Each structure stands twice: as C-alpha cells, then as structure tokens.
C-alpha cells in the first residue's frame, strides 16, 4: 500500500469514527437537564468477560479467549457489599455468567439479601449439557432469567450470535418452559431481550412483544413473560463492526438525532450500580465496557459503605446517546 493510499484509509477511518454533533454532556445542558443519581435499588454484577459465544453486537468484546473472571475473593466482597446495602434487585451478567465457577455460591448467597435476583443468559451456556444443576438451582431459588433472543429470523440471529445459536436458543427456551419458566402464575419469570441485528434502532417494545409472543407460541410452543428491546451500544465488538462496515458515523448520527429529553429521567444508571469482575464500580455496564468509573472516580466495592448517594454525578460520554434514543433504555 502506498503512502497516499494509507493516508486515504486513515482519513476515511478518522471521518468514519467522528463523534456526534454535540457531546452528550452538552446535549444535556442544552436541554437544561442534569444526569444525577436517584435512589440506587439495583446492583448489577458483571462476573467477567468469559463467554462461549463471540456475538458481533457485544459491547464488552466478551468471548472464549477472555481471562477476566470474578474470583472467589471478589465474590465474597460483592456479597458483603450487597449485605450492607440492601438492594431490591441483584442483576448478574457477564460474559456468560454461567461459566464462572463461583456463580452457584453468588446466587445462593444473594437470594437471602435481595428480593429479586436476575441472571442474564445467552441460553447456550445455560443449556450446554453440563449445567442442569444450575438450571435446577435457578428454579428452586426463583431466579429471574433474562435471555438473549435477538430475532425471530434464524439467519439474522445466527449472523449476530454465531452458527446454530438460534436453534440452540429455541431448545433452551423449551427446556426452561418445561421447568415451569415463562408460564403465568408459576413464579418463574422468563424475560427475553431482543437487539437489532445491525446498525439500526429497535422497534417499539409493545408491538414486538405481541409479535414475538404469537410467533414463538405458534411455531415452537414457547411462552415467556416480557420482551425487552434494547439498542446496540457502540462499544466493544459492535463498535468495531460499525467502523469496519462503514456504519459508525450514520449510527451515531441516528442515536444523536433520536435524543429524547423525556427518556433521561428513566435511564437505568440513575438507579443501578455496576460492579466489574475485579470489584470496581461503574454507573452502568456500558461505562464498565468503556472504562468510565462511577462518577469519574475509581472506587473498589470493598470501600463502599452502601449504595451510591442520591444526587451523585453520573459519568457520561457519547455512548450514552444509546440510552436516550427514542423510548430510551431503562
């Protein structure tokens, strides 16, 4: 490649990766808005970036090669933090949290510390043939399962999450239904998460939930409780794909132009604190992926006396436009 060609490629990349018209903080101030904490009722625990899948929309770049995984000592510190903080909800995520060797202990301990425990699952790790005991544990402790299920279209789902992932997910959902999950009145809540399979925003949740319910029931006899439509966050592997495919600039423009001032009040970072595999605190999982510490300060979970105080500053950057686009990301 000649110097001229290299310059051309660099110029293209630089233009492609340009940030939105206005930084997120400026958009907030232009709308006379501040993003501060409300009462924090949810502790999100990211147990690590190890995953059995390499999804193209992953904001954490999680995958089988990642070594970051919460060790037993940090698990104990996180449990102690939950004990002194009295959260309403514990939201366990990864990576694939099922692959963390301490996941059973973490879930068992947390059930006595908060009324609602959620486990985010890609379904394939949970149903890999080695974790029936974990499924039974989740059932017995009435843990809410929040399962990734991006699309009703097999080709599009596999394109985002890997070959055969769609069929594997269908099999896992059938198994969870057989255990009682997803049936009204069973007390076993099964929620699905759908992400767009590309550089576009998600549809409105109500219509999509109705459609997912009809199609999943008709084609596979699958039932679930709620569907959440989340926009993809321009971080990690998804950001790399956006840049490589020439979609980054337009996607950021779309997020920016879809800014909805009314969504700011309900964004999840106002009521959630996220702890990473190594015990540091963030305002959300996206700031964790972007390396933006809670309120801009590096604080370890062992130093925290309780939940972050209402009114505390929330660290923001341009990926925050994802959570304020359209109906918002709550």
């Amino acid at each position, binding site marked *: 490649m000649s110097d001229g060609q290299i310059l051309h490629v660099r110029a293209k990349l630089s233009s492609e990766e340009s940030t939105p018209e206005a930084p997120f903080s400026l958009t907030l101030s232009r709308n006379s808005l501040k993003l501060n904490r409300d009462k924090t009722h949810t502790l999100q625990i990211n147990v690590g970036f190890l995953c059995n899948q390499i999804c193209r929309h992953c904001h954490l770049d999680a995958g089988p090669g990642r070594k970051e995984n919460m060790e037993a000592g940090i698990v104990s510190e996180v449990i102690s933090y939950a004990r002194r903080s009295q959260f309403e909800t514990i939201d366990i995520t990864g990576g694939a949290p099922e692959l963390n060797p301490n996941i059973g202990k973490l879930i068992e301990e947390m059930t006595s510390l908060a009324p609602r425990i959620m486990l985010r699952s890609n379904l394939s790790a949970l149903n890999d043939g080695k974790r029936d005991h974990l499924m039974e544990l989740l059932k017995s402790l009435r843990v809410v399962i929040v399962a990734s299920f991006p699309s*009703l*279209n097999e080709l599009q789902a596999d394109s985002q999450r890997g070959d055969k992932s769609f069929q594997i997910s269908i099999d896992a959902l059938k198994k969870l239904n057989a255990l009682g999950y997803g049936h009204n009145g069973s007390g076993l809540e099964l929620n699905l998460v759908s992400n767009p399979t590309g550089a576009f*925003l998600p*549809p409105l949740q109500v*219509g999509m939930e109705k459609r997912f319910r009809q199609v999943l029931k008709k084609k596979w006899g699958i039932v679930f409780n709620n569907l959440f439509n989340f926009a993809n966050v321009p971080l990690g592997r998804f950001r790399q794909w956006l840049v490589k495919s020439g979609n980054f600039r337009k996607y950021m423009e779309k997020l920016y132009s879809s800014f909805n001032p009314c969504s700011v009040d309900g964004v999840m970072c106002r009521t959630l604190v996220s702890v990473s595999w190594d015990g540091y605190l963030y305002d959300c999982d996206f700031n964790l992926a972007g390396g933006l510490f809670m309120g801009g300060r590096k604080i370890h979970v062992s130093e925290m006396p309780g939940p972050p105080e209402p009114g505390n500053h929330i660290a923001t950057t341009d990926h925050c436009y994802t959570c304020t686009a359209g109906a918002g990301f709550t």
Partner: protein
Amino acid sequence: METYYKPEDLPKFEEIGKDAPELAKKFFDYYGAVFAEGELTEREKSLIALAVAHTVQCPYCIDAYTQACLEKGSSLAEMTEAIHIVTAIRGGASLVHGVQMRNIAEKLSM
C-alpha cells in the same frame, strides 16, 4: 462517480417545500397521517411501502423503507417475501396481457 441519485439528497426532501410551502405542508401532513398506526400497524405499512418502492424503483424510497422495515421489527425474510409479491404482480401484469395478445392474434388468424 457523479450520479443523479445521491444518498445525501434524501434528508433534503423537505426543501421541496421552499417554493410551494402550502402544497408541501398538505403533502407531508398527509404522508405522516398515512404512515401512522391505524387498522394496519406501522410495521405492516412499512412493508407495503418497501414493496411499492421497488415497484416505482425509487432508490430514495428503497433506502428509507429498508431502514424503516428493520427498525419496525421486520425480518429480512419478510422483506424479501414482500419484494417477491412485487415481482409476481409485475410479472403477472405482463403475462395476463398475453390474453389480449391472444385475442388479437386469434381475430387476425385463420
């Protein structure tokens, strides 16, 4: 390469109202009302629009309604089926005129 159709022209659509604002307002109000949720959902309307866009072969409309269909939750399989409906109707419209051809040919033939 210079071309009559430029993607950056699509967002300029509203500029068409500069020299005939009242007509443009009537058109855009009507356009907005047509695509609002009614007896048909916004998703269904976008699929119809995508099919019509291919019928009138408008690159702007194909661009806009491909994105709209995806953002309203339609799958690529549904969108592809919609284009096949266009193709069937367009092909069928040609083929059914073969009846006229046959009528005329029969009248002229011994």
